[in-house]
């Protein structure tokens, strides 16, 4: 449609602006939800939002964050702007205490009963019998290697320190993750390591091994494809995407020393304009009809829904590796950290990185 604007119609438009401002709000309350998540993390799959809109008439709009701190900042500074928000389990209780999210009416989630109880009823999500987030997906932080260039099967975290891969190792520039790796490699509790000096020495020994740091899945894929990385720290969900969607020779390893486990929940923001729409969307997100195509066609972390996991093909990484009870026993689950702990970890990591540059 072509529109010509003259002075009169411009004035008319100005006059009706308050009305225009009010109308989308009403329309929004009826048929729209706003989701806050990492980009490319399931909720914004186009086929899924289209299927959801077709089934419920609710349009899904997205806003993204690049770090958990940014997500919390957005919830703090824009109350009433979001309906559904993705929260890593370790932040859920903090967000609830700050009044950023509201308890879920789980009766409206028909798939809630199919979620793994260990995740669903974890005290990271539940307080005073109220669920503040629905368990959604979980995964592991460990490492992956190039199975075309390394033909020996790797089963130990020491691979990152193996001189055979000197200058071909990658890791993420993240203090918490680096220290957790140091803890695994030195046989310590990742959440409460007793000997930080030992971890520091172990990490400093990575100097001849490291090529460079990565900061996103996309960057990891590029560095791996270019041959910069033979062995690199990685996330399980991303590993299955790299193998499936990018066709890279990526073999994810859960070493005998263990791996770092995390799980994410979906929450409803406090003052959400459309809480019912939010619950309907969360119910769809934990439904096998969303999860199975997501993992099969795109690549995803493991689902918290046991029926969804059972519906995966038998050779899927999420069923074959993460579905193995022996593997899950080796996982150490990430716990919340205080601001002070976070600062101490950052300083230790900055000391390690300074030693890399010397």
């Amino acid at each position: 449609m072509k529109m010509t604007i003259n002075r009169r119609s411009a004035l008319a438009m100005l006059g009706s602006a308050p009305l225009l401002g009010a109308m989308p709000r009403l329309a929004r309350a009826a048929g729209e939800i706003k989701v806050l998540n990492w980009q490319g993390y399931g909720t914004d799959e186009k086929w899924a939002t289209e299927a959801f809109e077709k089934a419920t008439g609710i349009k899904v709009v997205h806003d993204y964050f690049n770090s958990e701190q940014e997500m919390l900042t957005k919830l703090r500074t824009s109350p009433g702007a979001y309906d559904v928000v993705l929260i890593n389990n370790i932040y859920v209780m903090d967000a609830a205490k700050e009044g950023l999210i509201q308890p879920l009416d789980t009766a409206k989630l028909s798939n809630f009963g199919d979620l793994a109880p260990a995740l669903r009823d974890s005290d990271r999500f539940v307080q005073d019998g109220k669920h503040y987030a629905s368990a959604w997906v979980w995964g592991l932080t460990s490492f992956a290697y190039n199975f075309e260039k390394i033909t020996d099967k790797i089963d130990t975290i020491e691979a990152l320190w193996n001189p055979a891969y000197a200058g071909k190792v990658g890791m993420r520039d993240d203090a918490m993750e680096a220290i957790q790796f140091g803890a695994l490699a030195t046989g310590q509790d990742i959440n409460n390591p007793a000997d930080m000096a030992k971890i520091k020495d172990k990490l400093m020994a990575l100097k001849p091994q490291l090529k460079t740091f990565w900061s996103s899945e996309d960057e990891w894929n590029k560095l791996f494809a270019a041959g910069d990385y033979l062995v690199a720290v990685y996330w399980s969900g991303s590993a299955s995407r790299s193998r499936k969607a990018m066709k890279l020779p990526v073999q994810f390893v859960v070493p005998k020393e263990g791996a770092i486990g995390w799980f994410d929940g979906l929450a409803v923001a406090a003052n959400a304009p459309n809480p019912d729409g939010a619950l309907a969307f969360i119910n769809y997100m934990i439904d096998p009809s969303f999860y199975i195509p997501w993992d099969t066609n795109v690549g995803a972390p493991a689902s918290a829904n046991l029926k969804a996991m059972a519906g995966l093909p038998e050779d899927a990484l999420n069923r074959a590796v993460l579905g193995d009870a022996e593997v899950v026993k080796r996982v150490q689950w990430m716990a919340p950290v205080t601001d002070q702990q976070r600062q101490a970890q950052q300083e230790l990591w900055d000391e390690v990185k300074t030693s890399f540059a010397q």
Partner: protein
Amino acid sequence: MPGAEKHLRVTFLVAPAYLWLALTVFLPLAVMLFFSFLTAVPVGGREATLTLQHYVSFFTKKIYWYNALRSLELAAYVTLACVVLGYPVAVILTRMITGRAREAIFLMIILPFWTNALVRTFSWTMVLRGPFDIIFTYPAIVIGLVHAYLPYAVLTIYVSLQAIDERLIEAARALGASKRQAFMRVMLPLSLPGVLAGVFLIFIPVTGSFMEPRILGGKDAIMLGPIIESQFTATFNWPLGAALSFMMLAIILLMLALGYPLLQRHMER
């Protein structure tokens, strides 16, 4: 009195600009300065009290002062390279090329300015592989930053060279100065204001750079800039990040204060 009226009119005309500057530059800076004396960011029920601990940390913790030195060192390399590369380009532009060709070369020099910094830096990650393969090293950071800041050097030096009266150099030559002498004793001193303007424009932002080191520098990436960034993005310690930034600003102002008398003597000659 017409003088007073004119004064008033000028004040009236520049007031919006100053107000705008005050709002957009000084207000955020003032907030950050205030934050730098707090124990925590006062949101989400965090209790904040006044403290000097972040400024003390700068001196007592090696990671901060040592990486501040690394940032200054990097800025020195980048600035030196920009002047050494930019000066001949500016000379050629003023004295040897005219008309259309000059415009075309100007465009080529300014082009990096118009390119998104992130795109520019990522394109270096491709170029620096190839036969050189110096990606993820210290020289890669210097190359990326020199590419970004070279236009400042060329443009400021060009402007001051343009202003030099051609006849002064001819006079020096006519009075028996060699080409080298004419350059060292006439052209270079007269173009010094442009060189210095370029040095300031380059040195100061490079000390705070964090994106280029992180993308191009691999294991050598750590500087004060990336450390400040992580206080905002990873640890939610804005007070420490702010204090480290103000320490860097203080160091630069101190360097200017020490260098200024020396400069003034040079300029007045």
